[in-house]
Each structure stands twice: as C-alpha cells, then as structure tokens.
C-alpha cells in the first residue's frame, strides 16, 4: 500500500475445530496510529492478536511487519523486532517481585541471558529502566513486593509497565481496562493518551469510551470477519456496524454532534 504501513495482514484465516475464528482478515496498521479492534464477545479479537504475536499460528494468510514476513515466526523472536503485547487475562510471574517482572522485560531485550554469575537483582542496567517503567504507571511504591498478591488494578498496571518498559515499536493491548473500575480505567486511558503518537498501538477494547477517546482508526470484527474499518466518526455512523454490533454499545457513548460522515468506511464483506 504505502510506506506508512507498519503491519500488514492479508487473508488471515484460523479455525478451531472447523469454526473460523479469524476469517479472511485483511488489514493494514499504519505507523504510529492507535488502531482499535472492537467486536462482540467471541468475535476473534484475542485470536487475531495471538496470531500477530505468534502465540497462535494461522492456518492461512500472511502477516508482514515492516515489510518482513513474520507469519510463522516463533513468538519469542517477535519482541526483538519491537513488538510487545499485554494479555486480556493478566499474565505476570506471580512468585517474583514487581520489579523483577519488569526487569525481565528489560532483560529479554538486552542481549542473551546466558549470564550465570552476576546477580540480576542488583544489576543497575536492569533495575534502573525497570524502576523508570514502574514510575510511569505509578507502581514504584510496590516495586519490592511479590507480584501475585497485589490487587487486580495493580496487576494491570504491572502488565502495562512490562509492555512499555522496552519502548516497543508496536504495542498490542488486549483489553487493558478489563475488569477495572471506573477510576482505574480512566487512569489507564489517560496513560495511553500519553503514549499515543510515540508508538503504534493495536487496542482491543470493549470500553467504548476508551475506544472513541483514543483510536485514530477502528476495525470492527464480527464472527472472525472484518465488517468495517475506518475513522471513529465513520464507524459510529455506519449502518452495518450499528446493526451488527455498535447499536446497543453506542447508546452509552455520548453522541458527538455533527460527526456525520467525515471519514470513509471500507466494507469488506
């Protein structure tokens, strides 16, 4: 397409036991945009993110990142290209401290870890940037605590610190506000607002406040298919989207007056 495309997905297909969870998805993610992926439960959002990060391998189709084919690249190599993800269900190392969790994220990108002698806990090269990342999410006071027993909100903050610690090029966030209260989720949206523009963000989210506050573009997935991609205003007013999904969700979101049809919506199916 054009040189601004960071990640390109074409004809991606993945089925579980004959049921397509990702069905011929074709989508370009532009450099430094916040691209929200929305859709009802079971639409295949997590499945799509998992294929982009290599946790699941697609049955067919292609994924290119900065022009390189990464369709079947193992998950552990993708972070080295600058990709980082957070999980819908918090995924941290429970029996380590908060600081160690983030330090591991730094360590993963700091060359090989066949280093057997020096203590990692007292390695300034790891703890320094890790502490910095914790400050960024407001979790520095808990740095020395074991991560497991912390609250759900703190887990989500830790998860975010682990994602952001290494200044990734592409961030994939699978429902970062999942299970959060209003206050925490407002804080999370504000934190993402700060990030916006400094890296590319793929944001899977059910919270329409977050989506419309952050997204440059939105893709709507239903039953594994992309039914629309476009600017928020255009998605909001799109008839297909309203029928398939947004109708009830949008009632809750304050309607922006005059947001008629400023964008274009590309229908795929």
């Amino acid at each position, binding site marked *: 397409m054009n040189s601004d495309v960071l990640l390109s997905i074409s004809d991606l297909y993945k089925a579980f036991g004959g049921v397509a969870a990702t069905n011929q998805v074709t989508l370009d993610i532009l450099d430094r945009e916040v691209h929200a992926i929305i859709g009802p439960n079971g639409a295949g959002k997590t499945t799509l993110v998992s294929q982009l990060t290599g946790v699941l391998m697609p049955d067919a189709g292609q994924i290119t990142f900065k022009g390189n084919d990464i369709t079947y690249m193992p998950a*552990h190599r993708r972070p080295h290209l600058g990709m980082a993800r957070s999980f819908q269900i918090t*995924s941290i190392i429970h*029996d380590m401290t908060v600081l160690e969790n983030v330090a591991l994220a730094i360590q993963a*990108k700091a060359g090989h*870890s*066949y280093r057997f002698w020096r203590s*990692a*806990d007292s*390695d300034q090269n790891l703890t320094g940037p890790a502490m910095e990342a914790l400050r960024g999410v407001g979790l520095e006071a808990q740095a020395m605590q074991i991560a497991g027993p912390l609250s759900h909100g703190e887990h989500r903050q830790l998860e975010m610190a682990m994602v952001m610690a290494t200044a990734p090029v592409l961030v994939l966030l699978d429902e970062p506000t999942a299970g959060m209260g209003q206050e925490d989720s407002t804080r999370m949206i504000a934190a993402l607002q700060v990030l916006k523009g400094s890296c590319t963000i793929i944001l899977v989210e059910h919270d329409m406040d977050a989506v419309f506050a952050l997204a440059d573009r939105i893709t709507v997935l239903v039953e594994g298919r992309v039914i629309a991609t476009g600017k928020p205003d255009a998605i909001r007013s799109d008839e297909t989207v309203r029928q398939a999904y947004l109708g009830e969700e949008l009632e809750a979101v304050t309607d922006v007056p005059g947001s008629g049809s400023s964008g274009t919506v590309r229908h795929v199916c």
Partner: protein
Amino acid sequence: MTLRGWVTCAVIVVLALVPPIVSLVDNAFILDMATRFVILAIAAVSLNLILGYGRMISFGHAAYLGIGAYAVGIPAYYEVYNGYLHILIAMSVSAVFALVTGIVCLRTRGVNFIMITMAFAQMVFFAFVSIEEYGGDDGLVIEMRSEFGSLIDLENASVLYYVCFVSLLLILYLIRRIVRSRFGMVIQGARGNEPRMQSLGFDTFRYKLACYVIAGTICGYAGALLGNFTNFISPEMMDWTRSGELIFMVVLGGTGSVFGPVLGTSVFLFLEEILSGLWLYWQLVFGVFLILVVLFAKGGIDSWLSGRRTH
C-alpha cells in the same frame, strides 16, 4: 541471622569437622556415612536446580550418578587412573547425554516429562546391564581410585571426604550464583509463566535445555566421586528408584532454596539408617512418611526453618 542461616552454618561446620571427630572416636563407619551423604547431597542440589528452580521434574537424575561412576570404573578397568581424565569424561558424557535427551524431554510437559526422563535413564540402566564386558548386572569393581598426583591421595578416606566436602561447598556457591543471575531469572520466570516469558522475547526452550545440561553435568561429577567412594559400580546405582530417592531428598529438604536439598539428604539418610535397623518392613513406613511430606509440607524442611511458604 535467621534460623535457616544458623542451621546452614551449623551443618557446614559439623561437616568440616567430621574427619577429626571420626579419628577421635575411632569409627570409620561415620566417615563412610558422611562421605556418602556429601556425594548424594551434591546430586540432590544439582537436581534441585532443574526440579525446584525450573519445575522440570526429572525422574532420571540417578542416570548421571551412574554415568559418572562408570566414567571412573571403565577407564580404571583398562588401568587408566588419571583422575582429571575421569572427571572430564564423567562431566562431558553427562553433558552430552543431558543435551541429547533434554532436546526430546523438554518438548513434553508434566507427567510426560517425568515418564520420558525416567525412560531415558532406564535405557542407560539396561545398556549397562547388557554390557558383559563391564560386569553387566553384577557391576564392576574399581581396583584403584582416581589419581590426582601426589598432592591429593583419594585412597586416604579423609582426603576423599574433604574433596567431596569442598566440592559440595563450591557447587552450592556456583548454583547460588546461577539462580540469582540473569540466567537464573529466566529459568524461574519460565517456571512461573512460560508463555509470558516467550512473549517477552525469551527462547525458554533453550534456556531450560542449558539448565538441564548444567544440572546433569554437576550430577555426573557427583557420580565420579561416588564411583571413587564405593570402589564399585553397578547398574543398580541408576535404577529409577534411585532417581526417586533423589527427588524425595529434594522435596523433603525444600525446593525453595539452594541449601534445602542438603538438609533433605541428611534427614533422608538418617531415617533410612534408623528405620532399616529397626524393622524389616521399614520401607513401607518410610514410603508413607515421604508421601505425607510431599502432600503436606510443601516447602520442605527449608520453608519450615525460614517460616516462609512461597511456592
């Protein structure tokens, strides 16, 4: 200092004083017991590196004891007594065995991992049973212990003991460094949440394989000491029940610390000694006791000492 710290120091001091005490009371049996204990403690400590820190429950760790012992016995059979060569063979063959079997075993998880590590160890067991040249079932007598020049004479029981004891100390220190290093953090991270470690960018398979090889190599070294100590090697040394005993020593002592397995080994051998003298069916009681420990004392002796139950 914590209770755990005191106990650790006390055990080390007592072990350091075993030979002079033995010469005072004039009881060589105690020195034999202590030597066997120290060697098995090295094996248990090496097993804990993979079992405790990596949650890789290997049921074939005794194979390395056997490999190490045969690495002394077979050269000695051909009248090659160079101890440095023995240790080189013991450790390198163990490393290669761990590497090759690890590549296969580490692709499996849980019970499958346990079964396949056991299967590989049994393969080695049956291989040595079938080699008539080296005594097959009956084993192989080691006529002379490894030679390390005039400075270290292993034929002297106290010297052999101190070699084993210093080895234990060095290996404890080495493993302590390893588990706190970057490498150790990766191993423990993969124990806690392997998919997450991969999505952070760690090729966990390779790190676990490296850990598996390190543990096997150390245990191969312990095997070389064991061969020297017993002056005899038979396949029975690497039977799966031996691997099971090593697991019990580790679990009994506690998988949460580097030193825990040393405590586990001491209690295991102590109980074995006491119970076997008391009753013919001691193994039954012992077995029940071990099962209770596994079920109810999650962190083993170590966590009881430190009052901490982390995992």
